[in-house]
């Protein structure tokens, strides 16, 4: 992380112009600058933890737009995260959020939860599903769980087709594993078609970001350690090396750590290296240093690529591999906050959508505005979220597109959830159509 902790917010207000929440609420207390002011007041003990303070700090999508624009180089993300953690200590999260964090913390709980949710969706009467909403989304518009978790249906190593070009690690994240298997299948298919060997680290788990957002840093750290260990192991094992040589092997032999979700990606890229700064002496620090090779988090961070930017490197090969008679799908794109703000991938994605024959890409004016999903934001602040979505929906409806593409699972849930059956628009990750375009 590039935070310079000494840096003060100069209150210039530039962040007001990009904050999706401020743009809706139009009151200063909902701005990034105000959140920093509140944090300062809290640190100086001018304010104590209160439900209102917590609300003002949490009315934020953690989208990172403020960080990108800030001339003073403030790392809002880190500061907000710290504050959320401190507030969560004295003001516990509501039960629904707590159980989510509990669920995400352990892979087996997630698996069980997903199973139950499947059964739940199977048993719930259709009428009830339509009537009930979670946040802004009717239960019937929530995604169905994968029949089996993606990772249990894919081999650990998928070999390259044709001429081998290289080797990548694929961090699937939990949304793809449990809900959006199509994204995962497509990702592996495209990468192997391009000549990459794809290795999926075993025993990976939720990236930890949702817990961080809700102040459960301890749990997040445990998950992060698990994931780093899993990736490190996959990198080393594949070479048949002892763990201590894994770092060199990793540096030389792996082209990328691929993510299909830019939020997971932002975690690997920004949060994991910062992990190494947790105070020595804590039990977590000990576990970390025992399990993870020095320099490994930084190395993994540097290799982390979002799938679309990675595919952009191969744009010509992909275009050449598609025959001109393949179906062209009318598509619009929704740029997730982390794709824009952490991976700066917008121009590359637009180039892909324009260049590949499988797309008939229709740019819509608000493709980069936030959809208001923001992890659990749509659940916690449905009114604000709904307003953010309204304009996007109108744009999508007039566009005439059949597909609404986005590379973040939460955006996908949110976009799909706010469309209705009548809309007849399919929300998928762009890789799904690229994979179809490549054929078998």
């Amino acid at each position, binding site marked *: 992380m590039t935070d310079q902790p000494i840096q003060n917010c100069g209150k210039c207000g530039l962040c007001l112009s990009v904050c999706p929440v401020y743009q809706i609420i139009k009151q200063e*207390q909902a*701005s990034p600058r105000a959140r920093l002011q509140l944090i300062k007041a809290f640190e100086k003990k001018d304010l104590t933890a209160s439900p209102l303070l917590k609300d003002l700090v949490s009315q934020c999508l953690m989208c990172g737009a403020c960080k990108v624009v800030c*001339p003073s180089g403030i790392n809002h993300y880190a500061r907000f995260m710290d504050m959320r953690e401190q507030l969560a200590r004295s003001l516990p999260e509501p039960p629904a959020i707590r159980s989510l964090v509990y669920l995400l913390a352990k892979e087996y709980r997630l698996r069980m939860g997903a199973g139950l949710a499947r059964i739940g969706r199977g048993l719930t009467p259709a009428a009830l599903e339509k009537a009930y909403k979670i946040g802004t989304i009717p239960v019937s518009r929530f995604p169905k769980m994968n029949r089996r978790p993606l990772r249990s249906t894919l081999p650990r190593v998928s070999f390259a087709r044709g001429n081998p070009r290289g080797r990548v690690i694929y961090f699937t994240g939990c949304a793809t594993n449990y809900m959006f298997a199509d994204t995962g299948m497509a990702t592996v298919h495209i990468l192997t078609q391009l000549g990459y060997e794809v290795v999926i680290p075993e025993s990976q788990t939720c990236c930890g970001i949702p817990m961080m957002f809700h102040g459960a840093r301890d749990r997040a750290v445990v998950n992060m350690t698990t994931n780093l260990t899993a990736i490190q192991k996959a990198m080393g094992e594949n070479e048949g090396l002892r763990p201590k040589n894994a770092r060199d092997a990793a540096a030389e032999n792996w082209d990328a750590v691929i993510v299909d979700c830019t939020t997971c990606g932002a975690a690997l890229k920004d949060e994991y290296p910062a992990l190494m700064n947790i105070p020595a002496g804590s039990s977590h620090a000990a576990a970390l240093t025992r399990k993870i090779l020095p320099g490994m988090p930084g190395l993994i961070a540097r290799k982390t690529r979002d799938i679309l930017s990675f595919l952009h490197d191969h744009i010509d090969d992909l275009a050449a591999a598609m025959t001109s008679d393949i179906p062209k799908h009318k598509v619009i794109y929704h740029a997730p906050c982390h794709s824009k703000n952490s991976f700066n991938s917008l121009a590359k994605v637009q180039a892909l959508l324009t260049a590949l024959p499988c797309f008939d890409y229709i740019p819509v004016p608000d493709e980069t505005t936030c959809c208001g999903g923001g992890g659990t934001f749509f659940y916690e602040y449905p009114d604000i979220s709904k307003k953010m979505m309204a304009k996007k929906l109108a744009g999508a409806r007039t566009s005439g597109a059949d597909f609404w593409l986005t590379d973040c699972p939460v955006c996908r849930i949110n976009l799909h959830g706010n469309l209705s059956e009548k809309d007849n628009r399919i929300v998928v990750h762009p890789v799904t159509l690229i994979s179809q375009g490549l054929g078998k």
Partner: protein
Amino acid sequence: MISPDLKKQFLAIVDPARWLDEKEPLFCYAYDAFVEESMPDAVIFPETTEEVSQILALASAHKIPVTGRGAGTSVCGAPVPVRHGLVVCFSKMDRIIEVNTKDRYVIVEPGVVNADLQAALAPDGFFFPPDPGSMNMSTIGGNIAQNAGGPRCLKYGVTLDYILSLEVVLASGKVITFGSKNIKDVTGYKLAALFCGSEGTLGLVTRAILKVVPVPETVKTIMATFKDLDDTANAVTDIIGSGILPAAMELMDRLTLNAIEDKAGLGLDREAAGTLLIEVDGVAEACDKQIRQISEKLHAHHAVHIQEAGSAADRERLWTARRSAYGVFAKLAPDIISEDVTVPVSRVPEMVRRIVQITDKYNLRVGVLAHAGDGNMHPMIPADKSNAEEWERVMAVFDEIFRAAADLDGTLSGEHGIGLAKAKYLPLVMDPGTIEFMKTIKQAVDPDGILNPGKFV
């Protein structure tokens, strides 16, 4: 303090969602982009002129201080409620009521963000010339109250030059409307000039009719570099003095340029002691001719390199350099302070020299940046406010810079305003009689002194 009973009366005017009086949110209305803070007792968000009128009538009856607020981007403390009381925030009164390019005007509410107005005009090929660096967030109400300007105001003039008519609510709650939709209008006092730049001390603007102009056919941008900062400044004086009027003319010194290059790597010349970013606009042929004339002058002042932006992307790159200056400096130290003294353009070389001398004397770093064509200096000093000794030196530097500007027939502020920051320096550039006259006006318009009290009048 606002009593529970009085609060009830305010809540009869607006719904509770547009009233804030809890401690947490109030912290967020204590500041602008200047360094001083002071909390209000409550914040209210009107949506109509009628509501503003009722709010002021009520505040007047109870002598509650009232401070207007747009986006809070003022850099002089203008919207900071130093006497507490009520902040009237216009962010929700943000409708563009009419765009009429045929008669070349727009009608807007005060909370409209400058950039949103520009976006609304763009499809018709028109624009609103005042372009403060804060245009993506600052409001038209704030622009009017501060008489904001920006780079292209060299050619086009400042906010005041674009006001055709204002609707203003006076302290008593009375609503007045003056001016018309006509560009020529000499009926009575030019009251716009009274309210524009008054920093919310005379009345609250609730509606404005603004003049808009067509986007010029062509824009040409060049960047010239010099080995010597004096040459750079002399070139400015010479170009403007010879009657050429570019749309913008921005000066940057070596420290600024290098700091930008360190961060952004735009391929700027690190050896240059000074650079000028110059833009001309208008009909293509006229632009070409102006660029030729300007280039001759630049060469006469020993410009070592002149590059013309060949494409829109190139132009964007040059402006990115200029625009990123503030951000780059802001990162050099925990805090940054920037001023905007202004001198007649013939005194630009001397003023630049003095700024450098003064900061050297106090052993501080300074980035010299200027809207040089209109003599508007923006020295930026990165420093650490928590270091009391250093901060004292910073204050001493600005003290001397203000005096130097006054000495050169300049003025305290070209665009940022007086607010809290420069109130005590007013006598440097204004005689006692004039200050007295301003007080007389204030007294007549706002006898109880409830509008933005504690500021320069």
